């Protein structure tokens, strides 16, 4: 997995309430948090984690820090991410909501140029059950296993992880790409990562209305993914053009390359069905669909 348990991790914005709350929880899960960064708070500690004013001051930087979790004020997040990239960090988990879209455009360009993986913003980040927590996923709902769970929401992700866990199905990873309109990494990128991951046998993709991420994911699955995928889409009955919370969940077609129906639940379900991906009607149906696919998958046939 691309997030090994030995990863050296820092938290930028560790003195924000969000950082203060989750730093001790990530540490308690076994994540190697080597430092926190918060301009002006250098010299202090949070939960025994030393704080520095800048990333470059962290002694461990010379041995290589792989990942940063960013909990800063949203207007400071781009700067924090660029500082991390400059210091050689190549995995960035953005938790904070409210990062301006043009800041994300700038960050996406920099990330592509430096081959940096950006997860989020406005999402709970990444958990590898039993190994490492990089964000705010509640670990109790997860257990180690072979389902790769990719979503673009928060508590609905935990709901589905818990549903799988209670059915005895563990997860190889839980990742939310984030709830905003412009995110650092996309469903196709994550499908490719899980396609190459040895731990993952089945992929569960949880989408929602708005934007065209699910349509693009469905297209990518039919082109490039051999592992079985199951999808679930939230928002079939959400009122059109009204805001529930996610900027990306507003159905709109202002730009000219969106057809009128792209973004609706019907369009997304149709796209997955065309790609041969079973779509669950409700979260509680997902474990049954996973069981069916696991029985059919070649590695299980060899084992039996």
């Amino acid at each position: 997995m691309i997030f090994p348990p030995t990863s050296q991790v820092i938290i930028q914005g560790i003195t924000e309430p969000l950082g203060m709350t989750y730093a001790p929880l990530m540490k308690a899960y076994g994540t190697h948090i080597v430092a926190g960064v918060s301009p002006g708070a250098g010299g202090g500690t949070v939960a025994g984690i030393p704080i520095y004013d800048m990333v470059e001051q962290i002694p461990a930087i010379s041995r290589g820090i792989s990942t940063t979790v960013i909990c800063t004020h949203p207007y400071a997040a781009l700067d924090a991410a660029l500082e991390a990239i400059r210091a050689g960090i190549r995995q960035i988990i953005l938790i904070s909501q409210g990062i301006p879209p043009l800041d994300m455009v700038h960050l996406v360009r920099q990330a592509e140029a430096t081959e940096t993986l950006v997860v989020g913003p406005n999402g709970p980040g990444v958990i590898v059950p039993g190994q490492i927590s990089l964000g705010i996923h509640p670990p109790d709902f997860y257990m180690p296993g072979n389902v790769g769970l990719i979503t673009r929401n928060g508590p609905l992700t935990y709901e589905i992880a818990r549903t799988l866990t209670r059915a005895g199905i563990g997860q190889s990873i839980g990742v939310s790409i984030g709830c905003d309109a412009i995110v650092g990494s996309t469903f196709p990128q994550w499908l490719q990562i899980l396609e190459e991951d040895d731990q993952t046998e089945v992929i569960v993709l949880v989408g929602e209305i708005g934007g065209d991420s699910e349509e693009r994911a469905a297209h990518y699955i039919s082109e490039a993914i051999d592992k079985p995928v199951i999808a679930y889409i939230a928002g079939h009955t959400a009122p059109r053009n009204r805001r529930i919370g996610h900027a990306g969940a507003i159905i709109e077609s202002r730009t000219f390359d969106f057809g009128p129906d792209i973004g609706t639940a019907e369009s997304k379900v149709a796209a997955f069905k065309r790609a041969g991906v079973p779509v669950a009607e409700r979260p509680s149906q997902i474990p049954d669909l996973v069981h069916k696919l696991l029985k059919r998958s070649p590695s299980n046939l060899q084992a039996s």
Partner: protein
Amino acid sequence: MDLLEYQAKELFRTVGIPVLPSQRIDRPKDLRNLTIPYPVVLKSQVYIGGRGRMGGVRFVENTIDAVAAAQTIFNLPIMGEYPKALLAEAKFDAVQEFYLAVTLNRSIRRPVLLGSCKGGMEVQSAIDQMQQVVVDGDFSPFYARQLALKMGLQGDLMNAVSAVIEKMYWLMDDKDLDLVEINPLAVDSAGQIMALDGKVTVNDGSLGRHPDLASLSESPIINPLDLQPELQMTMETDGTIGIICNGAGLTMATLDLVYQMGGKPLCFLNIGSETHHQWLPSTLCQRLEQGLARMGQQSQLKVILINLVGGIVSCQEIAQTLVQFLQAHTRNMRTYSRGQEESIVSRVVFTPQIIVRLVGKDYEAAKETLSGTSIVLLEDLDESIRELMSRVKRSKS
């Protein structure tokens, strides 16, 4: 946040996009102090498009005509919206009209430049001829020239139009705009270009770092970033069910399940904000209390379903919040009944029934806490929806 035309043009003027001399008119008598020579165009300043076809734009030759026309426009709603002001502008004789826009394509995560050689009121012909350039790397003026050439422009006109596109891009970049649109960008017989109309949409989440734009907002900015996002309840026209969840995805999934079982939600509320940088574990319970108070104002409501997948907030903390909420909504009432003395009873004055679905830490303790109350606690999502539906049916009979 959308800007009015005159506000958009003030921005255009500051970055050197050519606009006509103009003057804002707040009441018809302002026209007596008009500094622009006649003939002038009077334009209704409304947020909605299509005012030209509805009589919101008039040409006038003198002050008497202008005052009369202004009175008419001030009293003319455009799709229900009355003008905030009028814009009096010099007249321009266009021989050609283009459409130009700069916006973000969320899907490819890049800004795009859009242009059509058929601008003006005929939107469909503009769309048919629409050209696009994706700003893949850091912006440089060559992207603007690419678009102008794709639009079929040549020579001096190509250079002049691409200079406008370049300024539109920098304006978007500098001010965190979601959209900058000029329709039409007009050309006169001398080859001079002019932005005759402008539409600018500011990114709401970025207003906090643009106080100059925030001050143009009609209402005070409701969501300063340092505070938790304000609760926004969504109302349907009909129904007896209220739904409170944390997170937009969970709210939508819960709504879907309720509709699948034949339920009719009257209103729903997403109280989640766990990725806010100021979030604390106590935030969820505070927002739950606020949310219940909001829903309590809906007299039509019979049952509220609360579905929280709180992660690190324990079931017990949420249960205690609910108990406190009901206690705060309990009143001592005098009751009189025949043959008996006056007595005082405590009654909960929060009328909707509450079903709460919680998972995670301290579920058993939460059960204990809620055991003496009217609140139903469940752990399974499907079961809680079934319970909701059976309560709704009972409340009807």
